[in-house]
């Protein structure tokens, strides 16, 4: 018996050793260091960075660029989930329920649509960013501006007009995300017994009420999950902005986001202390969002 317990302990230790070590070295220790570094003036040069307390945090309160970034993240946090979920629900509903005729059923070709809608999801964000850089070209060689100019319109500076660039970023993010949530919601819809729709239809429910009275309530859990996921994407966005936009978050800081500011300050200005302070703020925003959404949804039931 004692031997068995010893064996069990050995097994647990052996199995946890590698993952816990890796995790502590590469994930936990940098985070802890980052909290310390955020209270120093470290620029990567001096061996002993000076401890300056909360000076970096005081400074970042006045950093207009960073707060611009925060408002962009906040905008994305609201708009990205909203637009993506509405579109995805709409398409998922059409694909699964909105079939032709009187009866409900999957629309013809629904499998094809689902495959195609998912395409952007399998492409790397960096690849998507470069692709849309070309799509958004400001003159007749741009995929979008060419037809616009052919119709006699003025070309739109999708990435060069500070008033438009943010919406271009949002648009690309939605473009990439929708397919995944169409499939996600379709999976949810598939688990709703078909008879429920039919029963409702026999009761004379129209498509609209079918959607609001049956589809949405039964999918509500999935929608909440989607909201949390998209929210995290909105707070964490980096590659799209860094690769696609002019001047990495421009023009005139009109598309910059928190992650880009952390990166810029750390690896272009070599202000590691200050960048870490920005990262700490970002950390609290993200964790705050995660806790809030766990509270609001019933997700804590599952694991926490």
């Amino acid at each position, binding site marked *: 018996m004692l031997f068995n317990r010893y064996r069990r302990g050995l097994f647990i230790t052996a199995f946890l050793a590698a993952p816990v070590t890796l995790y502590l070295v590469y994930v936990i220790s940098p985070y802890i260091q980052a909290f310390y570094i955020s209270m120093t003036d470290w620029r990567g040069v001096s061996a002993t960075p000076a401890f300056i307390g909360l000076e970096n945090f005081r400074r970042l309160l006045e950093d207009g660029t960073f707060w611009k970034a925060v408002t962009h993240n906040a905008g994305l946090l609201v708009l990205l989930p909203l637009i993506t979920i509405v579109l995805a629900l709409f398409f998922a509903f059409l694909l699964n329920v909105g079939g032709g005729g009187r009866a409900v059923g999957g629309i013809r070709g629904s499998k094809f649509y689902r495959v195609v809608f998912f395409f952007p999801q399998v492409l790397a964000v960096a690849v998507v960013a470069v692709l849309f850089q070309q799509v958004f070209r400001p003159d007749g060689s741009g995929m979008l501006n060419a037809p616009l100019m052919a119709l006699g319109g003025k070309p739109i500076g999708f990435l060069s007009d*500070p008033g438009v660039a943010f919406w271009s970023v949002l648009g690309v993010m939605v473009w990439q995300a929708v397919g995944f949530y169409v499939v996600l919601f379709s999976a949810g819809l598939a688990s709703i017994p078909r008879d429920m729709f039919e029963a409702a239809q026999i009761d004379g429910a129209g498509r609209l009420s079918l959607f609001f009275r049956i589809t949405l309530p039964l999918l509500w859990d999935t929608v909440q999950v989607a909201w949390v996921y998209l929210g995290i994407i909105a707070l964490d966005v980096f590659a799209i902005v860094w690769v696609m936009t002019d001047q990495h978050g421009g*023009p005139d*800081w009109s598309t910059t986001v928190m992650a880009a500011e952390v990166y810029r300050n750390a690896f272009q200005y070599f202000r590691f202390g200050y960048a870490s302070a920005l990262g700490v703020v970002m950390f609290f925003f993200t964790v705050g969002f995660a806790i809030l959404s766990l509270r609001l949804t019933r997700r804590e039931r599952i694991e926490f």
Partner: protein
Amino acid sequence: MPDTPRFTRRELLRSAALVPVAGALAACATPAAKPSASSSAAPVATSAANPFGVSDSKPLEVWIFDGGFGQDYAKNIHQPLFKSKYPKVEIKHNATKEITKVLQPRFAGGNPPDVIDNSGANAMDFGALAQDGQLQDLTPLLDAPSWDDPGTKVRDTIDKAVIDIGTYDGTFSVLGYVNYIFGIWYSQKAFKDNGWVPPKTWDEFLKLNETIKKSGKMAPFTYAGKFPQYLYEVLLTMAAKIGGPEVLVNIDNLEDGAWTSEAMKTSATAWAEIGAKYLMEGTAGLDHVQTQTAQNKYKVAMLPSGSWLENEQKTTTPADFEYGMFPVPDFTGSDKMPYGTLHSQPSENFIVPAKGANPQGGMEYLRAMLSKKAAGDFSEMVKTVSTVKGAGDGRQLSPGAASATKAYTAAGANIVYYRWQTWYAQLKDEAIAATGELMSGGLTPDKYLERLQKKSDEIKNDSSIKKYKR
């Protein structure tokens, strides 16, 4: 200042976009090298012909940055010249695109090579090297007789800016070999064909813009909209012309109100007018190559750039295009600086490591490079302007290089420059962002300058940022 005024060169932009820190961080990680005894080996007697006492028995190791200018100029011009005088010295020629990666360990190990062209995006940080005592004091080079004429000191054969900019912590230790000359570039052919004349005053400049616009043949003016640093370059130069070089010195020194000075206001207002009226359509979304190519295709008449332009565009330039450059025009007759004042800055920076095996040979190599023949051949080969005075005289220079050289000679001592953009990257980014907005009308000139002044003040009050003075 690894990326001084080469901000236009592809390596730099590429690195700004992608390669993050390797260079600077590795440079920082240099352990303090132990003092080396190698340079004190048996001295060779010095003479007027051999001012540093180069020893025939010591090999000379040279590393060239293999970038926009390639490495052939070193192999085919500089080294043969050096050899002609010291046939017994063995020259070990090397080239790389990644100076830091290859050479940083050599510094750390205490056996750096003897001459380094420390350029490109992956150049080593001069400040860090200087702090570490790794750079040979090149003052003896300045005071040595020049290669061509024992009666003239090297100091007098090169542009003064080279000495100003190459001085770190009071010691001249970096030799800029290429002069970047900034101005407004045009096609001499297009101007001839249409009867347009390079303007000398701002009024003429505005009129010329109007004429070109009305002609309907091409757009009058453009700049690399994605990189507005091309535009603030002329804006600052004109401000210095109006208010004198101290306008730029004050900006460099983060003085209170430096950005909001009258000269800056006048210049910003003037350029904002160009932005509002005469820009090629779509300028804001185009990069420097796209705008320069548009110029090669005669879609736009003028753009601000530097003397590397001709080499950069050589594949798309029509044979009869004939690049020309004119200086920023006079704003009024009462400008503090005369017509022809130029913004010019030395670059392509050569150093001699203090702890190398053969610093005497290294300095002698630089002395050979600064000879008229070496510098002239170099200018011809890579279509550019060297920092050696008069090196381009009587040479078959390409039209653009000839035009820039002419303007440079005419400018004489009326040269201005600024360094804040390499000292304070945050200020540079803010200036880039704001200048784009100024040109597209999103910011009034006053708001534009206020914004930059605010950023400048922020940096001044930020104790964590190292400050520089000039």
